Structures are given as structure tokens and as C-alpha cells.
């Protein structure tokens, strides 16, 4: 099945390079939902996610000749989308920083621990009683991650990408990428501690 899809993608790309613009429609319709899921997890809202999806397919179209040697169009457009999402998060963070603190414009949060900079907004365990609150808290914790950490956790946990694949998107090496994944999980655990500690959490993968 996967092979059939890959062949169909390759044929669609070939037709496009031969000038058949409508062949791209097949690729867009086939991969939009996957890209949307990743974009939504990266951006945290539907509006930005849709913008990422559209821009990614436009960019993929413009760079199509670079794809010629690659086998899987889905993976390729996914990477383009991840890179664009990183750029958008950085831009969004910079805009927010400028609005909140005009004296420190353009600061990139990639190397800064956001948890050390934002005021502690953690609600007490009593307030965080239901799943809606837990979702809000997790959404805030994800938003506080740096663009690289957020990409790492989305690609590794939700989309099951390998470290090498994440490293390619982050333009980093394997060890640094592994550390980015670890740091992202540590930050999420610390941010969620008031809510998760004391609650029964499902233990998995301990091989006991």
C-alpha cells in the first residue's frame, strides 16, 4: 500500500514537472490532513495551522525540482511545514516580546529557557481539577517551549519521527537533537507537576 502511494506521488510529481499543474491537486488532497495535524500541534491553534499548511504546499510547489531525487513527497512536505512552523513561532514570539517589552525587541527564544522568564502561572492542584484545566495547562506549557523543543516533542512523540529526521529539520546533530527532546520532556514535566503529581498516572514501558 505504502509503495502504491509512493508510486502515485512520484507520478503526480512527474506530471507536474511536465506542466500539469492540476496533478498537484492529488498531492495536496492526499497530504493536507497529516500536515495539518502536525501544524496544529506546533502552532497551538487552527488559524495558524491552516496558514502553515497552505504556505507549505505553496513552498513545496515552488521547490518541486529539488524534490526530484526524493522518494516520499509526504515526508518532504512535512519537513517543509515543520521548518515553516518554526519560523512562524519565532516570528510570533518576537512579536509578542516586542508588544510586552518594547525595550528587548527581536529576542529569539531558541536558546533561552522560557520557564525561567515567565511569571509562574501554575494554578494550584485544587484549581486544576478537571481535564479541561489540564489541557489548558499543557497548552500553556507547550507554548512556553522553544521552537526547537516544540518541534522535537511534536515530531518524536506524536508523529514518531526518528532522531535523525528531527535533526534534519532542526539542522542539528543527533546528540544535540536527543538533548532537545529530553529538555522538552523535562520542561513539560516540571510545568505539569502541580497537576500531575499525586494523581494516578498510567505507567508504561517500565518492563516490570
Amino acid at each position, binding site marked *: 500500500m505504502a509503495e502504491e502511494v509512493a508510486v502515485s506521488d512520484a507520478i503526480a510529481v512527474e506530471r507536474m*514537472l*511536465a*506542466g*500539469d*499543474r492540476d496533478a*498537484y*491537486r492529488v498531492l*495536496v*488532497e*492526499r*497530504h*493536507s*490532513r497529516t500536515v*495539518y*495535524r502536525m501544524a*496544529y*500541534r506546533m502552532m497551538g491553534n*487552527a488559524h495558524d495551522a*491552516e496558514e502553515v*499548511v*497552505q504556505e507549505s*504546499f*505553496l513552498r513545496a*510547489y*515552488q521547490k*518541486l*525540482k529539488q524534490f526530484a531525487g526524493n522518494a516520499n513527497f509526504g515526508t518532504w512536505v512535512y519537513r517543509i511545514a515543520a521548518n515553516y512552523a518554526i519560523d512562524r513561532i519565532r516570528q510570533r514570539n518576537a512579536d509578542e516580546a516586542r508588544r510586552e517589552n518594547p525595550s528587548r525587541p527581536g529576542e529569539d527564544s531558541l536558546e533561552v529557557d522560557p520557564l525561567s522568564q515567565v511569571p509562574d502561572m501554575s494554578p494550584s492542584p485544587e484549581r486544576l481539577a478537571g*481535564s479541561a484545566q*489540564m*489541557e489548558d495547562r*499543557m*497548552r500553556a506549557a507547550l507554548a512556553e517551549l522553544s521552537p526547537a523543543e516544540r518541534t522535537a*516533542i511534536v515530531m*518524536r*512523540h*506524536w508523529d514518531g519521527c526518528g*532522531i535523525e529526521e528531527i535533526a534534519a529539520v532542526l539542522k542539528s546533530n543527533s546528540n544535540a537533537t*536527543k*538533548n532537545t*527532546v*529530553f529538555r522538552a*520532556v*523535562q520542561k*513539560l*514535566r516540571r510545568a*505539569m*507537576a502541580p497537576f*500531575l*503529581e499525586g*494523581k494516578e*498516572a*498510567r*505507567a*508504561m*514501558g*517500565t*518492563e*516490570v
Partner: protein
Amino acid sequence: MKHRTEEELIGYRFGEVKERMEIAAHLKECAECRDAMTRIEAVFVALDAMPIPDPGEDYGERVWQRIAPRLAERKTRWWETVFVPQRLVALGGVLALVILAFVAGRWTKPRIPVADQVDAAKVSERVLVVAVGEHLGRTEMVLMELENAPAQKGQKPINISETQRRAGELVEENRLYRQTALKDGDQAMASTLDELERVLLDIANSPEELTPAAFETIRKRIEAQGLLFKVRVVKQGLDERKANPDARPAENKARGTERKKA
């Protein structure tokens, strides 16, 4: 008992540690590390519980509707434009006409009066002369743009994407005319077109943005080969042939020697 670090436990969870069996054995023994592992696992459970809105079954179609009008903005390369169906049809039409003219000239010989054959050949050559003349005019413009571009200071890259696009379009035409000139025995024109083709190919295949040094190399090559001069001489020859259709390529051979001397 030495406890495992949080990094080791996260790595274990993701299958990114070498000593997987050792950590599994440790977790079996150590309640404290098991608690730490449970806290890490709770993060993943919470992540999995995050909802994601379903964009709908027709989402792909909606994305296509939104981006389709913007796809025309895509920059194309010469080889992409050459293989566009409409262009192939046009090229096929020209080739069919040439073949038809050839076949008409050869096979219908017994039935066509000699005077008409000569006229047909003249018309065919005249069409070719006019087409090559126009092609050389367009090539001359591209070369002039490069040769007359203002000198750049510093290391700022020079964008030649527009010139590059036109050079790409000219390559295929140039190849066709060169082959025709060779068949026609016009060595001088074939040689000039050959030199032009190499330079046009170099321009078309260069990066869109050139360093001032790379740009200067192309410009010097155009100057060193006297390409603009050669293009003008060939064009002048074609103009003469337009004015006097009886001038044959054989005469051009002698003219070609003069051009080479020049």
C-alpha cells in the same frame, strides 16, 4: 543504589538508550526511579489527551481551492518551460512544417515544376533566415544585459534570475537552429551558435544569485570570445541573405573564414 538520571529515563522511554536492559532491571528494583518514570509517563498521557480539531474530510480540497490561484507564481526553469505541453505542440508544429517542406521538396519532385520547387526552397530558407535572425536578436539582448550590467561593489550577490530564465528559453531554439545550420552546410553560423549555446547553458544553469566574482567570469567570457561581435556579424549576414535570397551557405563559408580572422 545509584539512581538513574531523568535524561536516562526519558531516553529509555523513547528507546534512545544503549543500556535498555540494565535500566529495565533497575526500574524493577528501584521504587524511587519507578516513581520518576511514572511522572514522566504522565506527561505523555497528558500529551495524548490533548484534543486536535478534525478539519473535515474535504480539508485537502479546501486547501487546494485556496492555493490553486497562487500556484501560477511559481518560477519555472528553462527545461520546465521547454517540456510544457503547449510548447511541445508549437515545437512539434514547427518540426512538422520543416519535415513537410523537406518531404514536399523531395518526393513531389516529378509532379512539381522546377520553378515552383526553387520557390518553395527559397520560401523555406527565407523563413529560417528570418527565424534565426530574430533568435540572434533576442540572444544579443541577453548578452548585452550581462555585458552592460553596472559593476558591483563589495560581496553583495547579483540576482540574474530574469536573464537566466530567458537564456534557458533560448537554449533549445539555439540547438535547433545550430543543427539546421550544420545540415545546411553553414559552418560559420553553426560555430557561432555552438559558442552561444555553451554560454547560454552556463547562464541558465548558474545559481539565481551570483557572487560578483562569478558574474565577472561570465562577463569576461562573453567579452573574450567576442560573442556580441560574432552575433552581430552573423545577423548582418542573415540580413544580406534576406535582401538577396540567392546567397547560399557556400558563400557563407568564405565569409565565415573572414569572420574568424576578424
